[in-house]
């Protein structure tokens, strides 16, 4: 019976150990940031594979989410005779919540898992070890550019998602469902506050970008260098990122919008 407690204790210690390793790893990444900034080539290459290649996924998802929001919102709001508020509803949902969160989840699935797999594979084929022996710091050369690229790409992608979503809502709401065009935008403009809503949404996406990219590169770097180990690390990235995003979203929402 005490076996359960023992295993619980062991896994808690294991979690703490990983957290500690992850934190040390993050500090190493931050320390090598200056060296990456003087070599923009590394950063740009990574921004391409992380940001640009996620572009179509995010834009298409954003469009559909916006359109569905308009569709669903319209039917609910008509019960209260409040169709005119459709613009606000779509925009508020996207800017405050769906933009950062859904983009974060998609990002974790597409870019995060790719990062983990790539780094894990480099570890398994001894490329990271080889670099160390060639007196090149693998963290500065491989990890930090990817971290920075993820950190920059996430807010850009989230903003794109939100904008396209609002446009999608416009197409459905005004184009299909016949809501007044002027009303759609003007209600939105009067109710969506730049500081309160847009800036906070941006802050959320930066936080998510930080956390997801950190988890992705850490899992890759820490992976067991076998094919099974890499595949498990990739799964962990997606799962842990999802938990982290949803948890942080709750905390940030409570802090930011708590006294609305």
């Amino acid at each position, binding site marked *: 019976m005490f076996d359960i407690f023992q295993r619980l204790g062991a896994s808690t210690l294991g979690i703490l150990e990983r957290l500690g390793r992850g934190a040390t790893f993050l500090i190493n990444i931050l320390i090598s940031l200056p060296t990456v900034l003087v070599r923009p080539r590394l950063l740009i290459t990574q921004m391409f594979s992380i940001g640009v290649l996620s572009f179509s996924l995010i834009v298409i998802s954003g469009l559909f989410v916006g359109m569905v929001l308009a569709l669903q919102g319209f039917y609910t709001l008509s019960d209260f005779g409040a169709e005119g508020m459709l613009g606000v509803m779509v925009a508020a949902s996207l800017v405050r919540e769906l933009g950062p969160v859904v983009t974060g989840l998609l990002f974790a699935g597409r870019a995060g898992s790719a990062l983990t797999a790539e780094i894990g594979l480099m570890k398994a084929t001894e*490329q990271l*070890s080889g670099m160390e022996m060639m007196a090149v710091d693998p963290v500065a050369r491989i990890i930090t550019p990817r971290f920075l690229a993820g950190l920059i790409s996430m807010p850009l992608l989230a903003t794109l998602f939100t904008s396209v979503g609002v446009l999608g809502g416009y197409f459905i709401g005004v184009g299909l469902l016949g809501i007044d065009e002027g009303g759609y935008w003007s209600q939105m403009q009067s109710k969506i506050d730049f500081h309160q809503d847009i800036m906070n949404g941006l802050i959320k996406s930066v936080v998510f970008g930080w956390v997801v990219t950190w988890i992705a590169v850490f899992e890759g770097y820490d992976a067991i260098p076998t094919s099974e180990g890499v595949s498990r690390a990739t799964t962990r990235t997606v799962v842990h990122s999802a938990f982290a995003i949803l948890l942080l979203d709750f905390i940030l929402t409570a802090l930011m919008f708590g006294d609305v």
Partner: protein
Amino acid sequence: MTDTASLIKIRDVHFSRGSKLIFDGINMDIHRGKVTAIMGPSGTGKTTLLKLIGGQLVPSAGSIEVDGQNIHQLKHKQLYQLRKRMGMLFQSGALLTDITVFDNVAFPLREHTNLSESMIRHLVLMKLQAVGLRGARDLMPAELSGGMARRVALARAIALDPMMIMYDEPFTGQDPISLGVLVQLIKQLNDALGLSSIVVSHDVKETCLIADYVYLVSGGKVVEHGSPEQLTNSDSQWSQQFMKGMADGPVPFHYEAKDYVEDLLGLQS
């Protein structure tokens, strides 16, 4: 063998991985300008030894001196400086898979020197010529055979003109021709460039062709050492079994098991 002739001095090194004791007080001298072979059965931690020498792993006791410096007491910067003078050839080549052969060999030059691109191009072509792969410079690592990948890795290892090269199982899984090429390259480079080479392997035949000195390692200690001829004619039964590749001897053929007849007849022992 005077002290200055030893490039690397390994003294009383102990190392464990988890609960498994890998090295139990091992002593070795790697001499300058010579090809030193470290041989032993699989799993004795020969690769671990290379990582200890390179400073990637830290022994729990004992010391390793490389060119007069205790490698585990060096600060980060000094360690990296020392590593630039050490070349290492990994078992799989460990080439960076997302860049061409040319860029792989140019990698250490671009990272550690401020040489112009044209100078780098000259150096890279020279190194590739030395291993016979100058024409393959625009291929990607995925397009190379195992033997070619190792040769490219070798060209990369000598890019900064190091003072020594460590070879981790260079002969494993190679076809006879690649084998012949590699053996020849290791010896030629060692002599032509005045390098000191450490070859970790369990391919007795190939290694003895080029080794000047051999260490036989087993059970975490040096079992015997000497020139290849000395070891082939050694008195130790174990060394004899290893060098000649005999199926049975001090290292038994049968894994520990019950008496055969009893096992077959299902009798309790």
